[in-house]
């Protein structure tokens, strides 16, 4: 199986002397839905930023889709969804989704097609296409942000607590839609969250990081538990037991 991400002996830090991630070894198979849990300051978001080529590691190697992260970014094979939707307030929903088309089409190594209409339908936001972000609810804004990230048909989708600011009903609904998207696209998703329930429900694999510096505390393949389609019920006793197991791992990591 091809590797979507492969990190070896990865050290990452911001200023001199502050190491956020230390000696991380992690291989992620293509097509995985990886949930990343960990206490604040464990480097979850930092790791996504290294994969997205927003941040250079101090030491160690990282390969994304078998390549240097910089090449992957130039090819636009990575999509990024932030916790706050980061929609541009002066652009309509439609124009926010089309932002990737406004940048680098003639310059970057891969042209992307205009799938705006398809994505508006797929994310259920077609009725709001001409509205501005401030006219949308939090859930609708996050749908727009996901649609924008999907426009370039990324092979790897990085999500940094995308549903962290939403109410639980909206979050559950978006969880199911995200799983459907993932099953259909075959993309790899790296999903950072603070919610144990969300991490277990979504992931086909789940890792728990420790804080200061970030290392892998626990690494569980959930496929044996959930079967092929990565489907489960939030009430399934085995799932509930897994959530409890993750909670104690997280408590130990904090």
């Amino acid at each position, binding site marked *: 199986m091809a590797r979507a991400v492969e990190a070896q002996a990865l050290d990452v830090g911001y200023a001199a002397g502050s190491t956020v991630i230390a000696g991380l070894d992690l291989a992620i198979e293509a097509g995985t839905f990886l949930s990343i849990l960990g206490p604040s300051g464990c480097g979850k978001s930092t790791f996504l930023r290294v994969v997205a080529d927003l941040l250079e590691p101090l030491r160690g190697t990282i390969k994304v889709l078998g390549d240097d992260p910089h090449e992957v970014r130039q090819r*636009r094979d990575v999509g990024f969804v932030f916790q*706050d939707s980061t929609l541009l307030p*002066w652009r309509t929903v439609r124009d926010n989704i089309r932002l990737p088309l406004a940048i680098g089409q003639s310059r970057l190594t891969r042209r992307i097609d205009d799938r705006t209409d398809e994505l508006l339908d797929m994310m259920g936001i077609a009725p709001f296409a001409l509205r*501005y972000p401030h006219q949308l609810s939090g859930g609708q804004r996050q749908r727009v942000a996901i649609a924008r990230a999907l426009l370039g048909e990324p092979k790897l989708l990085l999500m940094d607590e995308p549903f962290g600011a939403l109410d639980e009903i909206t979050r559950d609904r978006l969880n199911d839609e995200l799983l459907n998207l993932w099953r259909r696209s075959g993309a790899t998703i790296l999903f950072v969250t603070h919610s144990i329930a969300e991490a277990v429900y979504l992931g086909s694999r789940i890792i728990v990081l420790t804080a200061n510096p970030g290392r892998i505390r626990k690494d569980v393949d959930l496929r044996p538990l959930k079967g092929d389609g990565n489907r489960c019920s939030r009430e399934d006793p085995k799932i509930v037991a897994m959530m409890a197991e993750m909670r104690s791992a997280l408590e130990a990591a904090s």
Partner: protein
Amino acid sequence: MSEPRLTALLQAILYPLFGAASLILAWQFLLPALGVPAYIVPTPTAILAIFAKSGALLLSNLWPTAIEALAGFVIGNLAAVILAIVFVHSRFLQAAYFPVVLFFNTIPVLALAPIIILIFGLGMTPKIVIAAVICFFPTLVNMIRGLGSASANEHELFRVLSATPWEVLWRLRFPRALPMLFSSLRIASATAVIGAIVGEWIGSDKGLGALIIQATFNYQSDRLYAAIVLSSVLSISLFVIVVALERRFVRY
């Protein structure tokens, strides 16, 4: 139109009209009754009469001031926007020169005006320069803040999309700065006219500023007040243009 909306509209238009009309009436009838002489405060009808009598003279003095104010407005604000763009792209230049620029801002423009006239002579140029200098600083400060106001996430989004510095400027920084740019342009619409008139006070034989000085020394107070009304009309016109542009370009 529904009744509450009609009421709101009446309140928005009728009440201010009433306020203005009551003050003008008081000016027309109360001030003369109180014994305020016409050479200090002429009545509104007397000012209107001067527009009918000396319309051509007033208009011929309006144009130079209008051109100076508008040219100063455009040049001063454009220079401020360009310098702000340079500053946000070079930490060194900003650190080295922004404090110097702020120091210059503490010099009252009125004190600078004679020097500007010494340098540029008595034509329109020094008035344009004074108007431009007055517009320049508020826009520069607002624009530097506006161009730097995009969030860290917004910059990361553009980096994920592999945007060039030009794309970041044009698609992110500049639209982010627009509301702040327009708030300083609104202020500049009044100050540009002030700059042009002050310039004309110091050395000119035409323009509203020159007319104000001549009318004052000749005790032609109706002409003086007419010139003041025209200056105000000029500022309001510039302001209306700025607001119309803002409505067109800032839609959120």
